[in-house]
């Protein structure tokens, strides 16, 4: 959960929708392990790509 919060904070700084990220934070602990992995991987990838786009 801490990891998700950190990623969410960074994504909001990159312009992502805080309401949607709050939705994921609210349900995260109620997701299965597999669902948690999927959403974390998706958000991590987005953050990584946004950072790269900013640096280009």
């Amino acid at each position: 959960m801490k990891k998700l919060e950190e990623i969410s904070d960074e994504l909001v700084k990159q312009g992502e929708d805080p309401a949607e990220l709050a939705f994921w934070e609210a349900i995260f602990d109620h997701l299965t392990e597999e669902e948690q992995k999927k959403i974390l991987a998706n958000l991590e990838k987005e953050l990584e790509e946004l950072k790269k786009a900013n640096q280009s």
Partner: protein
Amino acid sequence: MNFENRRKKELVSEDLSPKKEKESFVFERQREIMERAKFERAQYVKDILVSRTADLATNFIPVAGAAKMMIEAAIGKTSSKTKLTRRERIDYAIIAGGTAVAYALVFSGMPQEGGMAQGAVGVFGKIEFGPMVVKEAAEFAREKFPAVAPVLDAVWDFMGKKKEAAKRIGEEALRTLEHMDTRHAFL
């Protein structure tokens, strides 16, 4: 300045100096990245909602089938056939999908005769529409369907933050659901 505001500012500017042109390219790239990620997450929302309706099946099989159909229908397309952007799709998945689950839950607490005989039109005509249905469904689900309740709580919170979209999408979803023939799912 966040991405949306910077993008709006960029769009009104006619003068694209090389620096601005580069910025514009970066903004476009950021938009593409966000849209792709959101599109994938909209599918996750759908999968999560559909899988949670399996929880209903342990107690009430007919509603589980109807709920799954309702989520698919509500998220699949808008009743006015409006094409959703990839960015809008995630809002639509959360609000329309959550509304569908809420209605299925409310239906499960209703006398069954009307629902079985009349299908979705008969059922939804008896439920007052509004975001409160999502909140009521979350309360109703808390004891009987513990896996569904926290998701509906989060949907309710999301709808509160996106009041305008929630009103529009919720009404769209309801119109879609009203036109569904769920009679066989309720039987």
